[in-house]
């Protein structure tokens, strides 16, 4: 069953690097991460790679396999022919630390800029009541394992480094949508979505949805509805009139002062 595969793996650090060639044994049922581990154990003990659960649940082992963002633990070797050369490179959008390990701190900084969940102040723990059908929309987005492959592939940052200061990428636009759709959340994040997270940068090419290992419909179910709600607030002339008669939509409060990126 076993064979010897040709691998090309990017080795280097922030100063630069190059593709290195390897010949390595492959056994039945293995995934790309197994082969990287075999390289570590037999040929390149200091080959740097992040991984953790090895079951597609933690989102640590993101890399680009033949140019496509993939979780290495979920990429079966049987999807390649035995003759094929397999090229593994680090995620391109984030700065390289070493080999396949990149600096993903951008994502954690953006996460900190999303105004947190805020339930009604007078609702006691244990008294939360929500219908299953109402939590399911946000639950879809909470399947996210934070592999950051959507933010890696999104051309608004992949090809435009400058946009990193003003655009948070699909992951955090989806997080805003998730909180927005939470049945008991009280905060209005529409202005924040525009001003701090750059929802307008997304032009709906759906690259994020294509690479999502959890098959979350990021564009259709999160970003487009968010764009619609933002547009609703910004351009709907009825909105300003109707707001005279009720508190703003669904009684939500404006987000508290949201800190800006300091990077």
């Amino acid at each position: 069953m076993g064979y010897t595969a040709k691998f090309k793996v990017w080795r280097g650090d922030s100063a630069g690097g190059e593709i290195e060639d390897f010949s390595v044994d492959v056994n039945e049922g293995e995934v790309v991460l197994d082969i990287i581990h075999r390289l570590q154990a037999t040929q390149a003990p200091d080959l740097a790679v992040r991984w953790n659960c090895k079951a597609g649940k933690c989102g640590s082992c993101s890399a680009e396999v033949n140019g496509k963002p993939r979780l290495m633990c979920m990429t079966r070797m049987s999807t390649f022919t035995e003759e094929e050369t397999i090229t593994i490179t680090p995620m391109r959008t984030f700065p390289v630390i070493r080999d396949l390990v990149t600096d993903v701190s951008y994502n954690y900084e953006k996460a900190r800029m999303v105004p947190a969940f805020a339930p009604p102040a007078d609702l006691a723990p244990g008294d939360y009541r929500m219908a299953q059908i109402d939590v399911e929309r946000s639950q879809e987005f909470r399947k996210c394992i934070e592999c950051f492959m959507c933010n890696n592939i999104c051309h608004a940052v992949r090809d435009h480094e400058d946009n990193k200061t003003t655009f948070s990428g699909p992951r955090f636009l989806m997080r805003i949508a998730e909180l927005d759709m939470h049945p008991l959340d009280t905060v209005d994040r529409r202005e924040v979505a525009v001003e701090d997270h750059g929802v307008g940068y997304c032009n709906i090419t759906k690259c994020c949805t294509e690479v999502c290992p959890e098959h979350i419909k990021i564009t259709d179910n999160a970003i487009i509805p968010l764009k619609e709600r933002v547009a609703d607030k910004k351009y709907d002339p009825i909105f300003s009139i109707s707001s005279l008669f009720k508190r703003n939509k669904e009684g939500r409060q404006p987000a508290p002062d949201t800190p800006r990126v300091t990077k």
Partner: protein
Amino acid sequence: MSEIELHSFDVVIIGAGGAGLRAAIEARMQGKRVAIVCKSLFGKAHTVMAEGGIAAAMGNVNSNDNWQVHFRDTMRGGKYLNSWRMAELHAKEAPTRVWELETYGALFDRTPDGKISQRNFGGHEYPRLAHVGDRSGLELIRTLQQKIVSLQQEDFRETGDYEAKIRIFAEVAITRLLTVDGRAAGAFGYFRETGDFVTFEAPAVILATGGIGKTFKVTSGSWEYTGDGHALAMRAGATTLNMEFIQFHPTGMVWPPSVKGILVTESVRGDGGVLTNSEGTRFMFNYIPDVFKDQYATTEEEADRWYADPDNNRRPPELLPRDEVARAINTEVKAGRGTPHGGVYLDVSSRLPADVIKKKLPSMWHQFKELADVDITKSAMEVGPTCHYVMGGVEVDPDSQETLLPGLFAAGEVSGGLHGSNRLGGNSLSDLLVFGRRAGLGAAEYVEALPARPVVTDAMLAEAEAEALAPFSNVGDENPYTIHADLQNTMNDLVGIIRTESEMVDALARLQEFKVRVKNSSVKGGRVFNPGWHLALDLKNMLLVAEAVARASLDRQESRGGHTRDDYPKMSAEWRKLNIVCRYDGEGAVIEHKPIQPMRPDLLELFDVEELKKYLTAEELPTHDAGSDH
């Protein structure tokens, strides 16, 4: 000595899974400055792997449930060797800890009346596990992570600095705890990214490092599970207890080889899945032990009726506690009734419609489809036992989680006591929340009461640095990866699911050889993100933990929960009275016996005397008869 980055905090938490994060939230709410140190990125800890749910007697699905029933189930599952005080606190506080998660933004699956839904699980009398499909651990860790972010946002609004109160040090490994005058004083470690060293000076340290799975070959644990907390605690002068009790989860994947050991959630059985052997027999009916015979169905018909009518039927034997199911599978395979890849069949495809399977078990469907090319809505899974959890752990005070070393606390899997000899599914996530919070509180109170902060010295740091750099100056040509593989095989084969004296003696001899080999293992490359070096350091922890496991296992001459002796197949009421405690003597692990405190009378009254007779010695039995109405 090189320049070493120095940080000063009130509380340093090692580990960022459920226990570590809940501890951090609590210590911060108590006004303390907190560092969270973790080996992986923030939000990637092993808690994400938990599938089934959080056990808490909220009574949302069956109103008969309450803390007393949960307490009883936990003690029964642990075969009465649990710390009854921890089991009591756990059962009482779990519902509050779950409801609290909703205030942080968690979105659990709901009941028709909008409450948190609860599912059935092995050993739990009523539906008790709060869950989100089969990704409950991800929901837990993300919720806690997001709560921490929200606290950082509060701190930012107040001080202009996100990290004023809580700072996260991701991808940092701790190699040594620092102590001054027999008290915790901080921790020393390195940044995985750069290889640079870092010192955390802190009067209180909380261990929340998880388990020891990577000492075994077939395991559901990730690379992080190298027993760091257990080894750090023992080297610093604290103790571990009952390390012989290791849970082999009955259902890990067995094929393909690269995913062998990866968990298949117990929810598959809770939701209707059945275990069959190669002859098509639903064999669990043949393995109902005497102590459980009143609670489990004896025919397939009754078992199948239970799903719809649990009040008038007994539970299917597939839902026996995990130790029983794992041993049964092991026996079936050894008797030649296994599957082609050495497991048994777990089938849900003939029991539930495809759309229901995909709704209730989405990540299992995904996992088998992607990793094994098996569609679980159409065919059975092949499963077998996998090393999943260590019930033993660092010895702690049940209320504060403080270890025997003042200022050092432990919570979650790294601590011992709550689960006795066997943990029930779902009791781990609730353990993390209940005792993570208690550890955070305990540490804050300890710091509050301390008259003066301990001060670490340059000499201590120089020693710690030399220890961490040793693998670079070793001269031998042993490969750390090879030693690790040999250690895993040794533990799996000789101190595994079924144990016998001669094999464990053999294992202990080999562990001594591994210690020598580790000293001869050299590391190539530099200090920047060098996994070979990281493994060489982790190996020292794994070896000490493996020795503790082997010595305790050899010592305990009975079979109970996660410790099965071929040569002592019976449970012994005399051994139940003893904790086996391990400490480090400078060379390795040494053991001693410590009596377990008798259970408080009001708790003992929750059980029938007839049931207690199966576990306790005659002198321990109460004079009351509680009857069967509890």
